[in-house]
C-alpha cells in the first residue's frame, strides 16, 4: 500500500474505532453494523468476482452456512460473557473455506455466465437443504442462537468491533493479494485465462484459493449476523438478495480495487438501511437497487474508484505534459513554412 493509502486506512480505522464511543444513537450503530457486514462480504467477493473476474452468485450460500454452523455450535456452548460464539469465527471461516475449495475446483472449470448460473444453483441447493434438514437447521421454524447477555445500552458494540476487525483483516488480505503474484495471476486470469495458463500462471490453484478465502470470510460474516439476529430462518440466511447486494456494491465502488467494495457498501447498504428506517422497512429499496445497477452500467461501468482514479491520472498526465512543454519550448519554426503533418496532428 502506498503512503497515502496507509494514511487513509489508519484514518478510517481510527474513526471506526472511536465513532461509537462518541455516543451515537442505537439506530446509527445498528446501521453501521450492517454496513460493515456488507463491506466485509463485498471485499471478500471482490477477491473472486473482482480480481479473478468470476462473478459468483452463490456467496449467500456460504453466508447461510456460516450462520447455521455457528448456530449449531452455539447450541453446545455455555454462554456466560456473550463473547464465546465470536471465538468460533475463525473455525467458521475455515469450515466455509473447506466447503468452498472442492466446489470451486469443479465450478470454476466453467466461466462467465455459466459460472454465475452454477453458483446461483448452489445457493438454492443450500437454501433447500436449510429448509429440509429440520433436525439440524430447524427448517422453516428457524434456529435459535443463545441470547447474548449484553447490556441494552451497548448491545451492538461487540458485533460492531468484531466486524471492524474482520474488515481490517479482509482489507489486509486484499492488499497482500494486490502486492503479490497471486493478485497478478488473478488479474491475468480475468483478462485472458487461456493465455495466463499458457504462460505458466497456476490458474486453477489461484482460482480455488481466491474462492475459498472469499467464501471463508462470507461464512464468518454469516456467523456474526446469525448471532446478532439471535434467530435465523432459511429464507433470510440464504437469501439471493444478499448475493445481489454484495455484487452490486462491488460493481458500484469498483471491482479489483481495495476501497471500491467498502465505498459501495457504505453507499448502498447505508442508503438502504436509512430508507428502511424512513419508509418503515418497505421493499422499495429493491427498485432503488435496480436503478443503481442501471446507472452503474450506463455511467460508471467500471465503478466509482477506477473512474475517479483514471480521471485523476489523466489530469496529472496533462499537468506533467504542460509543465514539460513550458520547461522545454519547441524550437521556433519559420512562420512561412509550417509542416502540414504537424499542424494536422
Amino acid at each position, binding site marked *: 500500500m502506498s503512503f497515502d493509502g496507509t494514511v487513509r486506512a489508519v484514518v478510517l480505522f481510527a474513526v471506526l474505532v472511536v465513532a461509537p464511543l462518541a455516543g451515537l444513537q442505537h439506530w446509527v450503530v445498528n446501521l453501521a453494523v450492517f454496513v460493515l457486514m456488507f463491506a466485509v462480504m463485498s471485499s471478500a467477493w471482490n477477491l473472486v468476482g473482482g480480481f479473478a473476474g468470476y462473478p459468483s452468485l452463490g456467496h449467500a450460500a456460504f453466508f447461510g452456512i456460516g450462520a447455521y454452523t455457528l448456530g449449531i455450535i452455539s447450541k453446545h456452548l455455555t454462554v456466560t460473557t456473550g463473547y464465546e460464539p465470536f471465538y468460533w469465527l475463525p473455525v467458521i471461516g475455515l469450515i466455509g473455506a473447506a466447503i468452498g475449495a472442492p466446489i470451486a475446483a469443479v465450478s470454476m472449470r466453467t466461466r462467465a455466465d455459466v459460472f454465475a448460473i452454477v453458483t446461483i444453483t448452489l445457493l438454492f441447493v443450500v437454501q433447500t437443504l436449510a429448509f429440509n434438514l429440520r433436525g439440524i437447521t430447524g427448517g422453516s421454524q428457524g434456529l435459535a442462537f443463545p441470547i447474548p447477555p449484553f447490556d441494552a445500552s451497548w448491545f451492538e458494540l461487540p458485533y460492531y468491533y468484531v466486524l471492524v476487525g474482520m474488515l481490517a483483516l479482509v482489507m489486509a488480505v486484499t492488499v497482500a493479494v*494486490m*502486492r*503479490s*503474484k*497471486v*493478485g*497478478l*495471476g488473478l*488479474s*491475468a486470469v*480475468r*483478462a*485472458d485465462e*487461456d*493465455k*495466463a*495458463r*499458457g*504462460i*505458466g*500462471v*497456476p*490458474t486453477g*490453484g*489461484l482460482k480455488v484459493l481466491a474462492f475459498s478465502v472469499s467464501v471463508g470470510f462470507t461464512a464468518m460474516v454469516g456467523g456474526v449476523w446469525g448471532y446478532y439476529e439471535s434467530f435465523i430462518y432459511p429464507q433470510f440466511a440464504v437469501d439471493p438478495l444478499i448475493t445481489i447486494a454484495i455484487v452490486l456494491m462491488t460493481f458500484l465502488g469498483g471491482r479489483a480495487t481495495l476501497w471500491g467494495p467498502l465505498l459501495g457498501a457504505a453507499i448502498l447498504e447505508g442508503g438502504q438501511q436509512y430508507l428502511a428506517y424512513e419508509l418503515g422497512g418497505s421493499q422499495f429499496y429493491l427498485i432503488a437497487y435496480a436503478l443503481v445497477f442501471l446507472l452503474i452500467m450506463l455511467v460508471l461501468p467500471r465503478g466509482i474508484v477506477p473512474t475517479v482514479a483514471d480521471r485523476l491520472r489523466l489530469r496529472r498526465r496533462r499537468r506533467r505534459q504542460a509543465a514539460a512543454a513550458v520547461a522545454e519550448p519547441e524550437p521556433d519554426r519559420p512562420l512561412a513554412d509550417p509542416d502540414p503533418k504537424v499542424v494536422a496532428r
Partner: protein
Amino acid sequence: MSEMLRVTGLTRAFGGVRAVDDCSFTVDEGTVTALIGPNGSGKTTVFNIVTGYLRADAGRVEFAGRDVTGAGTGRLYRRGLSRTFQQARVFPQLTVLDNLAAAAGYPWWQQFTPRVRAADRDRAAVLLSEFGLDGHADALAAELSYGQRKLLEFAAVLMSTPRLVLLDEPTAGVNPVLVETMERHVRERRAAGVTFLIVEHDLTFVMRLCDPVVVLDAGRPIFTGPPAQVQGNRLVLDAYLGG
C-alpha cells in the same frame, strides 16, 4: 544437431474436417524453422496441439527428447516451450511491466512473493530496452499500438528463458519497419541459442530468415527443405495456386 521438437502422426479433426492429418516433422535445435501453407492447411492447429492448447486425436509430440503429448500449456511453458499468437494477446488492463512479470513462469509455491520481484524488474528492463519499449513500463498494455503489443508479447515469452519459441504470424498487421525489427530479434535470439518455429504468410520474411521450411497442405507436410527449393517445388506451387 539434436532435435528440439518431433511431431509424429499428429491428427486432429473438427467434425468431419481433418484439420491436421497424420502430420510429422521435426525442428532441429538452433534453427529457425518455418511452417507455411495456404489458408486452412492446419498450421495454427499444429501450433495449438504442440503448445497444449488443443488435444490431438492421435499422434505424438516430443519436446527436447521427452514425450509431452497432452501436457498442459503451463507445464510446457515452464519446460521452455512458449508461443505467441496471430492476434497479439497481451493483458490490456495490466501495465507493460506487469505483463512481463506475469510471464516469468513462477510455480505455485512462489505465488506469494512480491508482484514484481527485483529479478523480474531487471530482466524486464533489459527486454524493454532491447525491444524499444523502455519508457512504457508503467503504461497500460491497452495504451500501446498494435505493433508495440506484438513486440510486448514477443518480449514476454522471453521472460522465462525459453528453449523453443513458436511465433504465429509475427509480422501480420505490422509495418515494414517493425517487420525488420522482428527479424532482428529472431536472429539475435537464435544466436543466443533459442530455437524458433514460425508460421508466416510473408514469404519474403520466411525466405530471408528461415531454414528449413515445412510446407503444409490439407493438414500434412508436402515439402521440407531449404527455402531456395520451396518456390520451385511442384507440389508447393500446386498447393498455393490450386493446381
